[in-house]
């Protein structure tokens, strides 16, 4: 086999499928679909380093699923080519859903193996703020998680937080561990400088992500922020009881350490000036910091506060005491909840939330509304605000009217006020949290950066604004507050756009999107029963008790314990099979692994085609009488072959389920063959391989062997002698047809009938080996139609003539070799393959071929070129050329199907023309039948 792989004239295309053929003998066009193996076979040395690091185990079909292998694997020890392959089913839904393209399945797989540092690097590859998104993310990954179809999605965010907290706790040791955060990305830690300079306005997630990507590409980046601390809304918006500062600060520090210059306390309001001062590009990532208010009476009174102002003051360390006050927060979203929960921590004032939406429709997260109520915040949903009531220059309340609210239409609320529901909510401090929008005042006054008021900055497909060289990303582009992940996703995207802008053709390309895996509920159940995922329920996040939250900003949610994280990780179904952790890429020293390989179509021109697609084993689980799948230690011959193989799953030992070698073995022949119920044909090979197995068991396992056979067919040279030798070696042969295999007293009892010579009709053994027969492969029908070959009644490919053309098919130029034609053993396969090659060569050598006499012909005058004949011809012998059908006389076999479907009878079959048949018909119908003629 290895010599085949190395032969200069043999082009071995493994992992490929023929998709379509056309043409005819001597002139076939073959389209081959090469599946990506994700490893460059010409580079891979087969060192197996990748399998060592791969966290994904799966059953190994080559070992008849007796053992496991990794997602990156080599087909078998002798495989040609010897390269490894990665088995991917596609992109996992979690990764597909995440705006940052986070490979969640990957880090979860690594967590399962307790490789937390590896998991951390895997996260960092796409995500510079794991601690933030481990806490406050809207986790679109979980919404998409396949497991959600079965019970509840995997707590992906919880696992991420566990990993990021672990990394923070071990931050001092972390640098010792190999940093793999760049593996599989287009980035390098110390890149060659491009000499280009980029200014980034805004140190929020969008700005910092883009900054990091750009420095890693060799551009020099400076980030400006008007605020005294970096992090944008993550830092000054999201309050500390949800997002502790020290973690974020550590993450920002890591980012800045890669060589980004940061200038705080600098509000930029001259973008053209920035460009003139030598920047090649500018990124606007200024977020959405302008809080909206309604223009109602007294909304300008100083006791009207703004949500972000309060949050920012807290973030900057200001001490505020609201004790004894009545605070009403206006708005029902997440910001309102944050403000309310922040306010209540400032001296336990009376805090309430009032909003338009009804309780069930409030845009804030449901869980957080619950927590807010738990913390003592009162809700007044379903009302609109008419006036801030001021008495004696002090705010005393908010006048509201109850409404029936149906949502927003064109930016305006669509609602009906309920008459007579006018009332005043008492308040001495009102905090507005009805939405944020970007502040555009820093943009050039000449309007050269277009905005779509009141939404965001307008950008083109490449995220560039109307001012060349000025890009925009994050909340400011979208015009309102979104989520951190979205900002990070846009940060990555805009970095690629800027890179393309700066480097033209050489810039980064958008990543190739592979298909997403979709698992059905059944698939999920199989994975759980196969043990690839546990059946545990989802581990929830727990919180610190209520009393510990009073008047402080301690983080409320707790991180998962290691045990919990492991339990949760076990729940991951591993949708894509390969988890895309990219550990293999890091491990492969010669860089043979490319996870972005794509399917390829290769067109070949060939003169002859030999089909040698082989057979498949009869699956004995459909025959319950033999006990396979029902009883332990009933195995197939194939499984035995893997067990006895020194490189097999048991290292060459034949073992029972309990790990002990069997003392007695029964070999049952004709399983699934020569039967009315299963396959009627004789599989021809099983007699001989059963003898071989009998000898192996006898010689190497030292067990007692009983062979139950129906007829011993030893039809080739030396086989009878082999049979006699086996008999003499002491193997017991019983004639009969096995009726059942049952478990009795801990042993397997095999019974049969038809016994003669007064021999036994049952035997009790430790192990039963089923000599399963041959079947056509499952895809045989599809292959037959691709190559237009017929099939015999038992489903194998049919030769043109059993005696005179045994390796040819009805289609010239397509030949058969091996067990795809009928069951045969290796010597026969080899002989037949030689025959097929000889016929193919003699055809090629002759240079001419004989045609069928009766073939189809087109009367072009009548042909409409409708192509119905083309679709109908079993031999792909017709093509439409210049608007009429043209029959390829080399391929036409003269079946006449085309003549029958042709609506206009433009197609005729020579020697069976319509004229001839109609004349026959008329003649036949004119003969009268008299009763005497009837015999």
């Amino acid at each position, binding site marked *: 086999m290895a010599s085949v792989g190395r032969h200069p004239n043999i082009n071995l295309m493994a992992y490929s499928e023929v998709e379509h053929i056309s043409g005819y003998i001597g002139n076939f066009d073959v389209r081959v679909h090469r599946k990506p193996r994700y490893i460059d076979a010409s580079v891979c040395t087969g060192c197996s380093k990748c399998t060592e690091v791969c966290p994904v185990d799966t059953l190994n079909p080559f070992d008849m699923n007796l053992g496991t292998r990794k997602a990156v694997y080599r087909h078998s020890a002798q495989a040609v080519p010897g390269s490894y392959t990665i088995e991917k089913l596609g992109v996992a839904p979690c990764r597909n859903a995440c705006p940052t393209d986070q490979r969640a399945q990957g880090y979860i797989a690594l967590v399962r193996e307790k490789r937390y540092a590896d998991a951390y690097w895997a996260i960092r590859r796409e995500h510079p703020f794991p601690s933030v998104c481990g806490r406050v993310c809207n986790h679109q990954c979980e919404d998409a998680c396949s497991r959600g179809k079965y019970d509840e999605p995997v707590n992906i965010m919880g696992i991420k937080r566990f990993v990021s907290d672990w990394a923070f706790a071990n931050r001092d040791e972390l640098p010792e561990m190999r940093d793999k955060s760049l593996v599989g990305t287009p980035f390098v830690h110390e890149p060659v400088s491009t000499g280009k300079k980029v200014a980034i306005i805004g140190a929020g997630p969008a700005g910092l992500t883009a900054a990091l990507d750009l420095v890693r590409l060799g551009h020099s980046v400076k980030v400006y922020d008007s605020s005294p601390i970096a992090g944008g809304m993550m830092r000054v918006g999201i309050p500390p009881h949800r997002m502790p500062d020290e973690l974020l600060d550590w993450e920002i520090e890591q980012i800045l350490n890669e060589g980004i210059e940061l200038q705080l306390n600098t509000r930029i309001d001259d973008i053209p000036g920035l460009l003139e001062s030598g920047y090649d590009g500018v990124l606007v990532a200024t977020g959405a910091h302008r809080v909206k208010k309604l223009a109602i009476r007294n909304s300008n009174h100083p006791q009207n506060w703004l949500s972000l102002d309060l949050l920012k003051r807290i973030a900057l360390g200001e001490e505020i005491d609201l004790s004894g006050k009545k605070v009403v927060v206006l708005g029902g979203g997440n910001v309102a909840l944050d403000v309310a929960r922040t306010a209540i921590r400032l001296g336990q004032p009376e805090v309430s939330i009032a909003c338009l939406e009804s309780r069930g429709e409030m845009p804030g997260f449901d869980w957080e509304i619950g927590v807010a109520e738990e913390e003592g915040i009162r809700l007044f949903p379903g009302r609109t605000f008419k006036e801030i009531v001021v008495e004696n220059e002090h705010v005393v309340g908010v006048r509201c009217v109850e409404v029936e609210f149906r949502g927003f239409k064109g930016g305006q609320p669509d609602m009906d006020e309920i008459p007579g529901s006018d009332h005043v909510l008492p308040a001495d401090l009102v905090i507005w949290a009805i939405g944020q929008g970007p502040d555009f005042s820093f943009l050039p006054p000449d309007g050269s950066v277009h905005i779509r008021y009141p939404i965001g900055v307008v950008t083109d497909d490449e995220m560039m604004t109307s001012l060349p060289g000025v890009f925009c990303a994050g909340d400011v582009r979208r015009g309102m507050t979104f989520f951190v992940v979205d900002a990070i996703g846009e940060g990555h995207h805009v970095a690629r756009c800027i890179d393309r802008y700066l480097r033209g053709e050489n810039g980064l390309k958008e990543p190739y999107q592979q298909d997403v895996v979709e698992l059905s509920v059944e698939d999920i159940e199989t994975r759980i029963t196969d043990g690839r995922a546990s059946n545990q329920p989802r581990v929830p996040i727990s919180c610190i008790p209520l009393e510990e939250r009073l008047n402080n900003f301690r983080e409320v949610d707790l991180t998962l314990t290691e045990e919990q994280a492991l339990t949760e990780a076990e729940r991951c179904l591993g949708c894509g099979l390969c988890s895309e952790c990219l550990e293999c890429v890091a491990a492969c020293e010669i860089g043979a692994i490319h996870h972005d390989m794509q399917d390829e179509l290769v067109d070949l021109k060939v003169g002859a085609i030999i089909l040698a697609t082989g057979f498949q084993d009869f699956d004995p689980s459909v025959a319950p009488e033999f006990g396979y799948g029902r009883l332990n230690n009933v195995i197939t011959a194939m499984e035995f072959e893997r067990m006895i193989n020194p490189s097999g799953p048991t290292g060459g030992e034949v073992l029972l389920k309990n790990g002990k070698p069997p003392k007695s073995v029964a070999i049952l022949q004709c399983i699934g063959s020569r039967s009315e119920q299963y396959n009627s044909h004789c599989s021809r090979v099983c007699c001989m391989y059963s003898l071989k197995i009998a000898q192996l068991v006898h010689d190497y396992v030292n067990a007692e062997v009983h062979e139950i056979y129906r007829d011993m067919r030893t039809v080739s040279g030396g086989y009878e002698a082999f049979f006699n030798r086996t008999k003499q070696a002491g193997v017991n042969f019983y004639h009969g047809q096995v009726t059942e295999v049952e478990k009795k007293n801990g042993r397997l009892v095999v019974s049969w009938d038809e016994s003669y010579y007064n021999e036994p009709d049952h035997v009790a053994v430790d192990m039963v080996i089923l000599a399963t027969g041959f079947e056509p492969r499952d895809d045989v029908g599809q292959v037959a*139609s691709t190559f237009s070959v017929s099939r015999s009644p038992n489903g194998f490919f049919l030769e043109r003539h059993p005696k005179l053309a045994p390796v040819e098919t009805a289609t010239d130029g397509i030949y058969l070799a091996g067990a795809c034609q009928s069951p045969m053993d290796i010597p026969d396969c080899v002989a037949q393959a030689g025959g097929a090659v000889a016929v193919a060569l003699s055809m090629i050598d002759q240079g001419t071929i004989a045609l069928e006499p009766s073939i189809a012909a087109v009367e072009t*005058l*009548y*042909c*409409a*070129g*409708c*192509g*119905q*004949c083309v*679709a*109908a011809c*079993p031999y792909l012998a017709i093509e*439409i050329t210049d*608007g009429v059908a043209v029959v390829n006389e080399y391929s036409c076999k003269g079946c006449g199907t085309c003549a029958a*479907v042709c*609506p*206009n*009878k*433009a197609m005729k079959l020579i020697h069976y023309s*319509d*004229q001839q048949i*109609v004349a026959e018909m008329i003649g036949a119908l004119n003969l009268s039948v008299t009763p005497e003629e009837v015999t």
Partner: protein
Amino acid sequence: MSKTIDIQAKTRQLLNSGQVSCVIGYEIGPRGRTRPAFIYQPDDAERMVWNRSCTHNLVPYVSDKLQSIEKNTSTGETETTQQQVAVVVKPCDSRAINVLTAEKQFSRDQVYVIGVACEGIVDGAGFGREDNGNLQARCQRCSEREPVVYDILIGEPQEVEAVDDYSDLDRLTDLTPDARVEFWLSQFDRCIRCYACRQVCPMCNCPTCLYERDDSLWVGMGIRLNEKRTFHLGRAYHLAGRCVGCNECERVCPMKIPISLLNRMLEREVEAAFGHRAGAAAAPSPLVTILDSEDGISWTS
């Protein structure tokens, strides 16, 4: 009204930009009858109309037009560089586009399809007999108000609920075989073999119809009843899995022969057996392809 304006605007734009050399649509003739129109000049676009009498299926004209454009270009008679025509289609007509592209009568990129969100066509359309204003029976049964293929959609398709109850067919299938023979003979009896039904059908595009050959192999040219029946059954069979139900054949028949019953019965049959709806996609008739495990054919004799 506004559909008319949209169609006119599109026509003008297509002709102005030179994207197509001809737009096939509808106009109103001197007797107030709606009829097919062929527009070549942007200025003529104003002749175009859309109304509830646009019953004609214009798709059969497409291959004709493409051929003549090709002919003229190759003989150098005209200087048309554009090989495209545009055609206005209703949902039913649009399916004919799919059938014909699947049957290689033209390729999809040779036609610019102006799809119209149809609201149904009235009885008597095309002959100026729209007196009662009722929707045609086929339109009452039709729930497909958006063309299956188009390059531009004119109007907004309404959601309509319509169930095809096939009661017209059932009325016949409930009869005894003898009564059915009787019924059909009384219908075919009137046929004068003008072949209008065939000429108007977008799918009938054989250069010389099998049933009009000189050799009288398949049918004699005399108009005895059994031969007319043969022609009609043959025609219907040839359209099995291909007929899109535009009903043009029945409309044009001067002898009011209910041809559509045959088409509909085969349509129902083919849909039940093969889940195939002609022209729903550009796919060949299932009758010429191999059996699929999904196919629900049953042979009972």
